[in-house]
């Protein structure tokens, strides 16, 4: 108690120096916390985007993830309705899951005959209502990413969505009234030369195939139509027609120029034709990310019990950029934290060192009165620790104020992995581990910084200290 009392009073003995030291610690704490809160927001935001798109887990036939994407039809899951039922009706998984839905990956060529343009595409078939429900997942209260409502109906197999690049390249911007989608400039050598564009003037049999799928009752004549050509599981070419009812801007240009999303039934028609309709995977979206490992274990148990040769991939594997983005920001955070710790370390060491010099006579008096060496050491360590506690506490308060101000400022930005601008937010509330870790860290850094001066004070020769003026 005496040590604490003397330490507290000594901190304010040289007010200017103590305030400078406290300000350094407080600003350091605030910087660490604000940046940590920003990273937390990024992490939650990127995770939300990933989980909304791919779910937490996806179940494939074993080997699909590494080898199957080149020929998704070959790796289709037979009798997938049974698998869906198994997952959906399991009592444990029922409590954990928000959405369990099938998907079918596919790739082929998309063409606009009227414009004599075509291009490769890749995409997915999904159950529209399930996709829309997945887009509502928002565990951390970040804004939803991308198109939250596809506008597609489960029973309407004619319509789909594309990346904005697909409709731009196929010359459909005008019909969709898209902004920032200028017409293609004229090239010196005609790119629409039928001899160089195999799909622009389709072979008679493909044109006939395409014509068969054209909607007869064209109630949505304003919606642009594209034809999708793909090889069926049997190897034969197949064509379906898709009405583009909506455009979803994708985060990467390559994806934006190639993505086509459609009703699962249409994708199955294209890939499997009249054969058995399969799916390439089952998407499992959980209510809470923290249940991921529990759900994975349960799925493995179910598959083992039924002898199913399946593999399970989580959203970090399905979205490799997730770990890259988080890893990069964590590295920056660690680097900034290390620099701030060093600044705090040297500032406190300097302040305590000056304090020891100024109080040399006092140290001699205390030692003469019977204070042991460890008592002197404890005194200065307490002062360093108190500086850390006060500075870190002040820093925490400042960080909360800054977070509140920024969260209510209306600032926007484009986070990584997201199209368009979002409100800029700092997630301090809900990141208590960050606050506690920073606070404890700065306390220890400050106490550690006082160690060298405290030791020097403790080792002073009493008579030399008493002689000091």
């Amino acid at each position, binding site marked *: 108690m005496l040590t604490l009392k003397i330490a507290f009073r000594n901190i304010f003995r040289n007010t200017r120096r103590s305030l400078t030291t406290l300000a350094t610690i407080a600003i350091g704490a605030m910087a660490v916390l604000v940046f940590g809160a920003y990273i937390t927001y990024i992490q939650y935001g990127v995770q939300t985007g990933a989980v909304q798109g791919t779910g937490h887990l996806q179940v494939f036939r074993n080997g699909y993830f590494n080898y199957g994407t080149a020929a998704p039809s070959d790796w289709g899951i037979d009798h997938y309705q049974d698998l869906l039922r198994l997952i959906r009706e399991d009592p444990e998984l029922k409590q954990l899951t928000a959405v369990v839905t099938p998907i079918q990956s596919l790739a082929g060529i998309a063409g606009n005959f009227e414009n004599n343009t075509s291009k490769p595409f890749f995409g997915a078939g999904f159950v529209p209502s399930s996709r829309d429900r997945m887009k509502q997942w928002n565990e951390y209260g970040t804004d939803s990413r991308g198109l939250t409502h596809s506008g597609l109906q489960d029973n309407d197999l004619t319509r789909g969505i594309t990346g904005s690049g697909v409709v731009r390249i196929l010359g459909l911007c005008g019909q969709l009234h898209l902004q920032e989608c200028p017409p293609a400039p004229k090239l010196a050598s005609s790119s629409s030369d039928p001899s160089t564009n195999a799909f622009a003037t389709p072979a008679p049999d493909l044109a006939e195939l395409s014509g068969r799928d054209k909607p007869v009752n064209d109630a949505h004549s304003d919606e642009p139509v594209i034809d999708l050509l793909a090889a069926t599981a049997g190897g034969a070419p197949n064509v379906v027609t898709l009405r583009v009812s909506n455009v979803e801007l994708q985060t990467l240009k390559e994806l934006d120029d190639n993505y086509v999303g459609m009703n699962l039934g249409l994708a199955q028609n294209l890939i499997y034709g009249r054969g058995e309709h399969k799916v390439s995977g089952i998407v499992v979206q959980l209510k809470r990310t923290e249940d991921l490992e529990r759900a994975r274990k349960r799925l493995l148990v179910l598959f083992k019990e039924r002898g199913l040769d399946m593999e399970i991939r989580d959203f970090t594997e399905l979205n490799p950029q997730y770990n890259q983005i988080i890893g990069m920001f964590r590295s920056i955070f660690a680097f900034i934290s290390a620099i701030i710790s060093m600044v705090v370390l040297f500032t406190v060491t300097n302040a305590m060192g000056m304090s020891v010099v100024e109080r040399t006579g006092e140290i*001699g008096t205390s*030692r003469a*009165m*019977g*204070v*042991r*060496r460890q008592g002197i050491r404890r005194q200065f360590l307490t002062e360093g620790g108190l500086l850390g506690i006060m500075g870190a506490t002040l820093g925490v308060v400042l960080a909360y104020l800054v977070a509140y101000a920024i969260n209510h400022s209306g600032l926007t930005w484009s986070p990584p992995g997201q199209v368009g601008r979002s409100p800029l937010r700092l997630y301090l509330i809900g990141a208590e581990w960050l606050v506690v870790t920073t606070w404890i860290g700065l306390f220890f850094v400050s106490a550690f910084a006082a160690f060298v001066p405290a030791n020097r004070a403790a080792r002073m020769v*009493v008579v030399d200290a*008493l002689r000091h003026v």
Partner: protein
Amino acid sequence: MKAQTLAEIAESESADGPIVRLSNVVKTYRAGSVEVPAVKGISFEIPRQRFSMIVGPSGSGKTTLLNLIGCIDRPTQGSIVVGGQQVGILDDNAISDFRAKRVGFIFQNFSLIPVLSAWENIDYPLMLLGIPAEQRRELSTRMLEAVGLSAQRDRRPNELSGGQKQRVAIARALVKGPDFVLADEPTANLDSKTGASIVDLMRRMQEEYSTTFVFSTHDPHLMSHADETFTIRDGQLVDHIARGSHC
């Protein structure tokens, strides 16, 4: 070297003998490569419950001698026995505890803890000894009254005059009931009138508390206050006057 506890020290103490016995004590300081002798083979005894004075000009070795007696410095040669205890064999912790319990210090520059009030400065040595709060409060308050500073109880040292600071220092030295009090030129930083009042106070307190005072000064006019006077010159004892006698 075996460390001794305070209990062991107390057991070994002789209640009848002198409070301090110095035998052929030498203290040499090293300034770079040069050895500077401060005390050159001094031997004497300081009797209990007396007001003893060590007199000598500046640089004669008075402060060094007081530091050795007060166990805040160690002799280069010779032995020092304080209260029957050979202090040279104590380790740093044991000697710190010894000082905390048995030695009171009064310094020329007062050496109060600046962040503590007058009352807290007096309370400080009692806290070091772990005395219960209630007992400390009573002892400190009584001592503050004894030196006439009740009204200045909550003032910090920078709000006190030189004389008041030295009164606080006297109270602080005496409050724990030490075996002896060492005062190193306590009047040097005071005007003559205040200095005289401080010497009077120390003398009165010494009689009232029946303790031993060892007082160093370079002012020969203060010799009349002493029961015992030891005159030091060039690190050697040149004279010892006991009250009414001259050796």
